């Protein structure tokens, strides 16, 4: 297991380096002078030249890349040229908001999705199963931004059950502000997880150990909940790990629509203003999160199912 973990995290590190390097090259390939955008039209040529040198933008791209990694090795993500604040501070200011949103989204969608999928698998080809299937597919098909806007209009404006914007203050305030955005970006995951669990459980239910359990007279409820579901949720763990990347991208629009602070919005704002230090800092952290969560999901899978350790 230890060897597997070392191999898996080694691969994760390699993926991170490649992803960050590609992003570094891509952002520099985009047309537009970042200094001009940062300083606006009124900056003097001297000031523009000074900032260009400060950001090393007058250097060849390969050299800029080396400088970036050199600084990174010293834990320096640079300084936001607009505010003069440390990029690390800015990114870590925003990160908890995004993590909270992702965690809330995946938690409620996993709980509901697993429940729906398990129930449907326990009652295959019944009316309940068909209704569950219809609901699941509808959830998967519902575009998250439409869900976000509709939920805002219904639950914030009309019913006024939940706040429309911001991240709130204090524990309950923050929880309150999470409900609608987490609902919006988690809804499609409910359907997806439900379908996944149902398919997985039906497969498991046909296996010999389930038949043996039934033959021993164990109640159907116990067979489903204990023997089948615990195997069937294995793919969900992987899906949740990989889903971190998708949730990060979903968080972007949720943060815009709900005017929430967060990493996604920070990245978008930074790209449009060519704020290189913030872009690279945000990308590094978000890519790191994605890669780490995928690796963690693989490790959990390998831990739960020892066959996975030797699969690759």
């Amino acid at each position, binding site marked *: 297991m230890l060897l597997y973990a070392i191999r898996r995290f080694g691969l994760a590190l390699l993926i991170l380096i490649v992803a960050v390097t590609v992003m570094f090259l891509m952002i520099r390939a985009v047309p537009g002078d970042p200094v001009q955008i940062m300083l606006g039209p009124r900056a003097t040529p001297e000031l523009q030249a000074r900032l260009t040198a400060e950001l090393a933008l007058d250097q060849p791209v390969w050299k800029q890349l080396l400088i970036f990694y050199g600084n990174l090795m010293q834990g320096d993500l640079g300084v936001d040229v*607009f505010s003069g604040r440390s990029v690390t501070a800015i990114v870590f200011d*925003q990160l908890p908001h995004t993590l909270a949103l992702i965690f809330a989204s995946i938690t409620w969608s996993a*709980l509901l999705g697993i*429940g729906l999928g398990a129930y449907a698998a326990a009652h295959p080809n019944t009316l309940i199963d068909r209704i569950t299937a219809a609901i699941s597919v509808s959830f998967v098909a519902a575009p998250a931004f439409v869900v976000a806007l509709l939920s805002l209009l219904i639950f914030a404006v009309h019913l006024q059950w939940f706040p*429309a914007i*911001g991240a709130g203050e204090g524990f309950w305030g923050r929880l309150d502000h999470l409900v609608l955005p987490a609902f919006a970006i988690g809804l499609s995951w409910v359907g997806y997880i439900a379908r996944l669990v149902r398919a997985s459980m039906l497969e498991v239910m046909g296996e010999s150990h389930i038949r043996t359990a039934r033959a021993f007279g164990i109640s159907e409820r116990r067979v489903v909940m204990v023997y089948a579901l615990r195997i069937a949720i294995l793919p969900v763990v992987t899906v949740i790990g990989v889903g971190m990347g998708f949730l990060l991208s979903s968080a972007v629009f949720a943060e815009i629509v709900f005017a929430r602070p967060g990493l996604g919005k920070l990245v978008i704002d930074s790209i449009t203003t060519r704020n290189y230090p913030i872009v690279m800092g945000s990308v590094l952290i978000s890519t790191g999160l994605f890669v780490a969560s995928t690796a963690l999901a693989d490790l959990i899978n390998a831990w739960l199912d020892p066959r996975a350790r030797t699969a690759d």
Partner: protein
Amino acid sequence: MKIEWTKTALGRRGFLKGATALGAAAVLPAGLGSRALAAEGGTLRVRSYGDMQSIDPAFSKGVIDEEIHAAIYNKLIQYKPGREWDWQMDAAAMIEQGDETHIKFALRDDIGFTNGFGAMTAEDVKFSFERIVDEATDSPNKPDMGPLSHVDVTGEREGTIVLKEPFAPLWSIALPYITGNIVSKKAWEAAGGKATTDPLAESGPYLRASWSPKEKTVLKRNPDWKGDAPAWDTIEILPIDDENTAEIAFEAGELDFTRVSLGSVQRYRDGVPGGGTLLEYPSLYYTWLGMNLDHPKLQNPKLRQAIQHAIDVPSVLEAAYFGAAEPSTGIIAPGLAGHRPQSLVPPQADFAKAADLLADSGETNVTLKLDTLNKTTFTTAAQVIQATLAQIGITVEVNVLESGAFWASADNEDLQLVLNRYSMTPDPYYATSWFTTEQVGHWNWEQFRNPEFDKIHAEAAQLTDVAKRDEMYRRAQDLMEESGAYRFLTHEATPVVHSAGVVPALRPDGLALLRYFGKA
């Protein structure tokens, strides 16, 4: 640091049991009550379209920062809320133009800085203004101070602003806007000369109580403020860049004041929820179609005139601005010296005249590229222009660009037609500054070169005679239009809504002057 690894008590089987239990507990009851909507009496919640960048006026990025600066600092003079551009006294007890290059002032004696930095003195004014123009400061806002030479301190609270040459925008930009904010010399020197995002010392009717990046800026009453008491105990400024989100927040009762989208104006004209009010202000932005005079395809003046006459401005505004914006007559907005009552080319298209001009030009099979930003308003406007130019046989290919690529167009030799929008501060000098010969290759994308225009720009800024300035700037816009390089479209509009309990204080372009906001 030594890290102790301990083995968790949770085994694989235990985890599986737990996960199974979680899966079984799928549906949780949710008891949802109704959300109380009552606004907090002493708190005003307003939307800003972006987040604060700098607390230092020398490095302010514009109106977003200035909304906060104007509340926590003082200036000698501030903009006066209303429909006409005007100023009123703030930290100045007296201010007068001695001669064209000397402005005498005396400070009020009841303004102090927080954090123990003492009373506001003329030394603070001198420090604040001179550091803006000091090369060592590298302030991007330096041009706003124009030809400031220095400030003579003649008493503890008295001094004279000395200019190198006359500068009319001193009264409309330099003093009442970003660069006019007076900071504490002692505080700034103690901090090494620069502030980033935390205030070093404040003096206004409000103090910045907190700032949560991308989330909220909170202003609280300054308990030591001796001037007219502000109406609100607390002002919360929420950065929301999307207007539709802001509208939803307003309708949900979470905002008291916000700019709204032009597309929603008609809806709000029919009624604002919660007894609120819609106010429509013109904006200082100016939007136009530019033609690159240096491009081989646009050398023929008759062709350029044909394009001017073939663009139907009302149709563009109806489609792109939902009919909520008026046609513009140039780059200088209504209410400012130099605003022209009408343009040389009427806003309505004259297709017959345009066709005649095209025929006179001798150009056939004209195909042009129109660059525009990837914003719905601009792409819609570009499509209408494309359609109207097609009526006289000119084919337009719309080239939609992301903001970074678009704003790098200054040195794009292939630029042909461009749909553009610049913002400005309330002085005509600011508008004309981008179209001088000196700006070719920078912000003068049409490559418009006109010695008379350059002369007007240089001389009108030095005049204090408003009538003369008015005449000169009108002539400058005539010259732009006569070149055939410009088809002026609109100054857009600033529609805002406010809740029933709020009396907004706005500049004539609809921007908020928070310190003056009142209660109904």
